[in-house]
């Protein structure tokens, strides 16, 4: 009855290019600030990085830390130890000379994450975090995460092509059957204990992974990062979440203008997107093995659609070919990298079984080095 379907909306023609400030001022670690500009909503570009800016962190006591450009709009500071008695702000001068400054924000250090656990719910795996602050000062929390998950190629390649003219058996370090991929949080996870008698966050949903997700095929490890926010920052991220994730439904709030805490000094009416927070992050890691998940949860392996084994011969004589014509299929298809070798074959003739690279080589998606934290 009710139906939500993708459509193409007539693009809204705007040439706006507002500065977007993403990231936070971290205590006890380096701070990564990513600067970009808004782009046309119908365009293919995800963002338009601001490359020529100078960025610095300024304490209310007057100390100043400059961030260095790492390209692609990323600006990184040296690890900083922020003082809880000070407030900090961000100064930005963009390549076109415009000056931006954030409000001074207090340092909010996160209490430890008590635990991260999971719950099996009807439509998937819910990752929950639990925390508390005995001093009752934290109250507003935000989480993001990095999920590392294992993928497995459709076929296990035992052979490796060497120098484009011969093949050898793979060593364990050369295996391309098992790989590890990272997936970062796209949805904003927020939680508040403001209404509670004590500063306790219980079973706060951080992520919901669909039961047929490839993330659950073998196993995953999730690193949950916890930030503590001011109530203003909480309101900002809540509205950002509503505007981008909770829209369109019958009882969903209407989207609204979002005002962050960064201002353009050169042109005070120019909107600036972003909200700078400062503080220390606490983290916790959880490993989930597929064996502990319901057996009825089958992964969606549509990535491997079209995967098949092909036999390539060293001397292939096509039917009706002129006398003396021999096609060196292994050289033509495998040594050139068009196909990934799986194993040797003797029947009907000497050859190599191969598959398309995306079916046999998981390094096209991730790393074949098992992460140190992997169980």
């Amino acid at each position, binding site marked *: 009855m009710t139906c939500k379907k*993708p459509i193409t909306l007539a693009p809204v023609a705007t040439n706006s290019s507002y500065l977007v400030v993403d990231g936070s001022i971290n205590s006890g670690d380096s701070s990564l600030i990513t600067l970009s500009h808004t*782009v046309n909503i119908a365009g293919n570009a995800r963002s338009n990085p601001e490359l020529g800016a100078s960025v610095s962190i300024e304490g209310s006591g007057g100390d100043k830390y400059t961030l260095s450009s790492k390209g692609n709009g990323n600006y990184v500071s040296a690890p900083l130890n922020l003082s809880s008695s000070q407030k900090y702000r961000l100064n930005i001068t963009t390549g076109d000379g415009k000056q931006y400054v954030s409000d001074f924000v207090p340092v909010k250090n996160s209490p430890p994450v008590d635990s991260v656990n999971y719950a099996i719910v009807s439509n998937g795996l819910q990752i929950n975090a639990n925390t508390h602050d005995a001093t009752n000062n934290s109250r507003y929390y935000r989480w993001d995460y990095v999920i590392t998950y294992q993928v497995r190629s459709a076929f296990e390649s035992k052979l490796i092509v060497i120098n484009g003219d011969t093949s050898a058996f793979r060593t364990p370090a050369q295996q391309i059957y098992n790989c590890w991929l990272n997936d970062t949080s796209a949805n904003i996870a927020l939680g508040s204990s403001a209404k509670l008698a004590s500063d306790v966050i219980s079973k706060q949903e951080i992520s919901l992974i669909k039961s047929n997700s490839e993330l659950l095929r073998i196993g995953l490890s999730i690193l949950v990062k916890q930030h503590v926010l001011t109530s203003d920052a909480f309101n900002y991220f809540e509205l950002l979440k509503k505007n981008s994730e909770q*829209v369109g439904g019958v009882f969903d709030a209407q989207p609204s*203008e979002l005002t962050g805490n960064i201002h353009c000094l050169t042109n005070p009416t120019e909107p600036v997107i972003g909200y700078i927070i400062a503080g220390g992050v606490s983290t916790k890691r959880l490993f989930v093995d597929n064996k502990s998940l319901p057996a009825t949860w089958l992964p969606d392996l549509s990535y491997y659609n079209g995967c098949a084994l092909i036999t390539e011969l060293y001397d292939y004589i096509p039917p009706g070919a002129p006398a003396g014509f021999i096609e060196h299929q292994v050289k033509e298809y495998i040594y050139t990298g068009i196909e990934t070798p799986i194993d040797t074959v003797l029947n009907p003739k000497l050859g190599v079984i191969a598959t398309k690279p995306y079916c046999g080589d998981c390094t096209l998606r991730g790393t074949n080095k098992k992460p140190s934290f992997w169980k």
Partner: protein
Amino acid sequence: MKKIYFTFILFFAVKLLHAQVSKNISVNFQQATIEQFTGELETKSGYHIYYDHAQFDSLKITLQVNNQPLESVLSQAFHNTTYHYALFESKMQVFLTRDKEIRTQPAAGYFNVKPGQTQPVAPSQVIDFTTAPVKAPVIESTIENKLYEVGIKTNQLKAGKASVSGYVKSAKSGVGIAGAGLYVANSGVGVTTDQFGYYTLSLPRGKQLLIVKGVGMKDARRQVMLYNDGDLNIELQDQVTTLKEVKISADKVANVRSTEMAVSRLDIKSIKQVPAVFGEADVLRIVLTLPGVQSVGEATTGFNVRGGAADQNLILLDDKTIYNPAHFFGFFSAFNPDIVKGIELYKSTIPEKFGGRLSSVLEVTDREGNKKNFAGSAGIGLLTSRLNVEGPIVKDKTSFIFGGRTSYSDWLLKLLPEEYKHSHASFYDFNLDISHQIDKDNNIYLTTYLSKDNFRLNSDTTYNYSNKNANIKWKHNFNSRLYSLITVGYDGYKYDISSSANPVNAYKLKFGINQTNFKTDFTYYLNRNNTLDFGLSAIYYKLNPGTETPNSASSLIVPDKVDDEQGLESALYLGDKFDVTPDFSISAGIRYSMFNYLGAQTVRTYAPGLPRTPLNVLDSTAYSGGKVIKTYTRPEIRVSARYNITDDLSLKASYNTLAQYIHLLSNTTAISPIDIYKLSDPNIKPQYGSQVSFGVFKNAAQNTIETSVEVYYKHIDNYLDYKSGAKLVLSHAIEQEVLNTQGKAYGVELSIKKTTGKLNGWINYTYSRTFLKQDDPTAGQLINGGAYYPANYDKPHSFNFTGNYRITHRYSVSLDVTYSTGRPITLPIAKYYSNGAERVFYSDRNEYRIPDYFRSDFSINIYGNHKVHQKFHNSWTVGVYNLTGRQNAYSTFYQQQGGAINSYQLSIFARPIPFINYNIRF
């Protein structure tokens, strides 16, 4: 037959008497009864006078005659009455008869008497009569060809006018018929019955022909001999073939005749003919087919009248205020179609007796229980079933009507995709009304309503809401010119949200509105040209704007309560419907409304000229219980006028001002069950509205086609819009979350209705615009830079066709076609990458529109046979909602999923929805 029979009895009972010479006599009767009259004449003349006492008991004779023959005395006494005398001189006998004349002579013309020649009547000195101290009994009129005598009968018909009043009732059930029209043949005089079927009509004394038209009733005529003020009840026969017509109005000439503008009356039969989404007639959905009425989408409970917000409609069920008029996300209206008699929607000329809302008054009227027989009906649909029972408690005096509905919709929700599968929704509602006639002049009505909704939208959060209403009305007729209606009632609306999935956060949020009402309405028929309405009303509000409590023992939720709000809204009103000439009439009224915001309450004062933020709070004052914190008063003007250019063409104009003291705060598109109600307080001003409208009304083809063009302009002050990112739930300082806006709306409405014939229905086209503007710099934030922006429900073009074609008396088909411009939405103007995903940047509010809306619905009504006297009557309704399956957009939006922004469209009914409904009446 009876009278003829009596006449003959009399005739044969005649006693023979000795002949006697007639002599002149002198008499002086003052309000003499027939006994006094005949006794004196018998004594003085020596004649014997015969009559049937029962026929003459209402006759009062005032006559002074000096020295005239008996015949002359009789002639003067009965002149201009329906009484006749026959004088047999030879036998010294006089026979008095009513209606039938005993001729003592051959018929006129027998002896070549010219037609039209009449006996000259000797002049008499008649002393002016006075009203009889004893009231004439109420006349129950059921027959068309009979001449009913109204008022204390006098032998002399006085010049001037008298008033007739009484009830127009159904002959079958004895229930009053509201909105029936009474017209005096060959004159422009006419009235409409009130909600109880009561009418008062002022007309010239003498013989009059009344034409009575009631919705769903056979047209009737009554011949009336009007002597004096009196009562006449008129019983109408039900129209047995119920397929006949969609009636928009009780009165085919009301379109051009009444001063009211933009009033839509619909009876339940018309409502039932329009296809509804799940096959059950829907009172609210039909309102959306009327010109000037919009809604933001399909799954909404609210409607917008002429650019007003959804909370600016006063929805009354028999004078009970219904705060949430919908069930099941708005797919069903709260009104049981088996109980409802009809609806009236006032969108421009709002009578002065109504107030408290800016845009419209929707009056839903329940039927009265059948006063003669037990009856009932039941209906079975795909999602709901209904039952109603009615009947007399004391025959012809006291009756009840009960209606109940319940839903069983979970099976349907289980068929939905996974994301909705674990939802649950159910509702029930009950109506119980009792009406009691104490005596001719006093009636008491008790009406009650109870509804409860419960739903869960695929999460552990449960929503409940409930309407509870009851009132008692006492209608008292002081005399035929003045009557009063006193209403005392309670209206309650409660809603709550609870969740207990996470024991630590388990909560229950409760909200509520309680209002106690008192109202007196008087109607006084001053004279033929003036009808006065006056009265006073008071509503005491007690609102619970939000209470949060832990919902489990281990919950850490700290109980939180926003202070209860109290207020008293009272009003005095006076209005006059003044017929200046038969072609020109004016309704003018004033309503003086007052609102007191009462303690106990804590009120914050803000620094003048600065945004209302926590930083700018100057002071906070705590007021004790019952203390008047703030008083607002407002004279509201309600004027309308009508001028008839010709019999079927009229011009109408109206001007209205209104005030609203209770506000609905919502930042969702549709009215959601968790929106917050707020009374006006020192920081939140009342909403004020004014509207001017002008219309041309033309009837064609013997009043069977009604056309109208209406234009309006409306201005609204202090409409509350929310700030970007406003938090409305459990806000202890809600004035910091909202903005005062101004609104303006204008439009033109074209309407064509065909009310009779095999094909009937209506076509409406509306062009309308609605804009809001927020340019108060003290609000701290200007929406769209302080410029006018379109309201959520601004849909410039709107077209509606509703038609019914009767194939035979057993089959009819209905088609409903709706088109409107898509509603405005806020779309992002840019995207960016932040916080791990693509995000969107929104700027100006409501700059874009969703695709246009188009829907057609079709239904076939199949009735069992129409034998009047069989025990059960069956009917089936089969149809398809959204026949073309068009995927109308409820909303279009950009949403981040899996890190990327994509555009989506949400449709509520994305395919044809077939439905079937079975009804049985007994």
